[in-house]
């Protein structure tokens, strides 16, 4: 899978693509990642759905969306027409539902990759989130992999709030994941001390933004160290080219931008520009030369060996 550049939108943060297109050309994105598409339409969670925290954002949108049929009818074609690289994120409550979604997408042209949002509650395991447990995650990935065309990569999206992210990553790769995306939002909460009630209607929510970047860098670092051959899409608090480079040096070969889009709708092209400048200033001609570079032993010269293709997922 080749991308025009390594800066993607993060799932659930770029709307349908049309909204961002008011600001800049979506075909110029490394890829547009859709919100997590579900089988049936979903109204999501009640409001308030957002709360600001220090350098962070809590959200509990609850995968609001029109369902896969309406998505294929009204949202995907528009993106395809524009020549956008499209990563379709999918979410479900059982492995079977993920597989059914993958089957529904299998014959649809124009899909660059399937990203499996594993931060959904497993309705067969008392609502425990798939990403929390390697075997549940692997089962989902295997069923999606089996239902997806061989030439469409399946990306497993992991969450940082587990005891051992490497174990979950390894399980997903063993289950057939072609690449990994991390991090999804860890679960957080905020309480309004004036109303003395949770700030979000849903109580807890996902924490995103620069506050979680150290967790994202750590996850990418650990997984890249353990599974150096597996492409990683890094995300979590990327707001500048420096942040993107941080994740790349940790081992990501592409980055996704989420919360930063809310403050700066031009974030993706800006971050790409900044990243390219930083790479150039460091004499890193190819992005691949920078991937995982911070892992080289202290004091050693710049890595020359490259085991990853430019922007390949």
């Amino acid at each position, binding site marked *: 899978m080749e991308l025009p550049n390594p800066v993607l939108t993060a799932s659930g*943060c770029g*709307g349908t693509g049309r*909204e961002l297109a008011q600001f800049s050309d979506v075909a110029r994105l490394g890829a547009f990642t859709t919100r997590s598409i579900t089988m*049936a339409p979903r109204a999501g969670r009640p409001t*308030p759905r957002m709360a600001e925290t220090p350098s962070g954002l809590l959200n509990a949108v609850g995968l609001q*969306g029109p*369902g896969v049929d309406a998505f294929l009818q009204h949202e995907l074609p528009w993106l395809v027409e524009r020549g956008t690289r499209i990563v379709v994120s999918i979410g479900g409550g059982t492995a079977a539902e993920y597989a059914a979604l993958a089957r529904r997408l299998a014959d649809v042209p124009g899909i660059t990759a399937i990203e499996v949002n594993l931060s959904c509650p497993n309705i067969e395991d008392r609502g425990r989130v798939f990403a929390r447990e390697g075997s549940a995650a692997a089962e989902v990935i295997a069923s999606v992999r089996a239902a997806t065309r061989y030439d469409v990569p399946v990306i497993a999206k992991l969450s940082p709030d587990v005891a051992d992210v490497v174990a979950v990553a390894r399980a997903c790769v063993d289950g057939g994941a072609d690449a990994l995306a991390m991090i999804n939002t860890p679960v957080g909460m905020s309480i309004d001390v004036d109303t003395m009630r949770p700030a979000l209607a849903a109580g807890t929510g996902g924490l995103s933004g620069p506050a979680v970047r150290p967790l994202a860098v750590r996850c990418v670092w650990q997984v890249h160290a353990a599974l150096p051959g597996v492409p990683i899409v890094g995300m979590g608090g990327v707001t500048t080219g420096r942040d993107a480079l941080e994740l790349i040096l940790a081992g990501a070969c592409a980055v996704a931008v989420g919360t930063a889009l809310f403050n700066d709708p031009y974030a993706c092209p800006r971050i790409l520009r900044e990243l390219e400048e930083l790479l150039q200033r460091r004499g890193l001609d190819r992005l691949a030369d920078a991937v995982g570079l911070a892992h080289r032993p202290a004091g050693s010269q710049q890595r020359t060996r490259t085991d990853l293709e430019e922007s390949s997922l």
Partner: protein
Amino acid sequence: MAGSPVQVTGTVLTTRRVDAYHALTVVAPGIADRCRPGHFVTASVGGPNTSMLTRRAFAVHDVKPDYGGTVELVFGVRGPGTAWLADLRARDTLDLVGPLGRPFPLPRDPCTCVLVGGEYGSASLFALADALQARGCRVDFVLGAPSADRVFGALRARRMGETTTLTTEDGSLGMRGKVTDVLPGVIADARADAVYACGPMDMLRGVTAVAVEFDIPVQVAVEERMACGIGVCMTCVLPVIGDDGVTRMVRACTDGPAFRGERVRFEDVGTIPFDALGAPGGRHA
């Protein structure tokens, strides 16, 4: 929408206090050009290295052609973001995105409109009144707030409106009570054809009920917590009934903020109505 929104690093031209509120005039040509009544803008707050990530939304109070185009925002200090804005001084820069949202639709033919504003909600009504009067409409104002210092724009309303009725809950200005207490009388006296309202959700609900009672159209501009303002985050939704009779959770920022009042399910704001499209266990799920 009158053209698509842009991001502008504006320069603060003037700052002033207006009773309980702060008003900022910002040079922001690209935005000013495109603004229509009911549009809003979002401001990045806190400066470099701030811990505040999300933009704050503000109705555009006034647009002027000076310096290539200025917008004026009127706001009360609620939390740290508005506190930061209140500390801005002339010549500081302010990063704005706009114009955003669906502006107020205007009547095709001249008619009589009552414009109802609660607290700073009235800020967006004067540009609307201008546009209505330019189309030959008669405009009457009803402005209310808990207390006199929080009624915004009374003088200007008096200058512009055929009539202006003020209410305060503590009786410190105008009639003691709420805008909905006086609205039926104003509608009746003016033989109003339509109502526009902007203010707290409770007020919009009450105003809508009155308009429905009189069987005249009502446009309300709602306020919901927004993380992006541009339609990508899905945090600002509220239940609104579509043309097809189906309730959907729609975005205040891009499907609104102006809605037909009777389409907004005010009683269900902050919930997912069981019959909304995609509601848990609902018929469409």
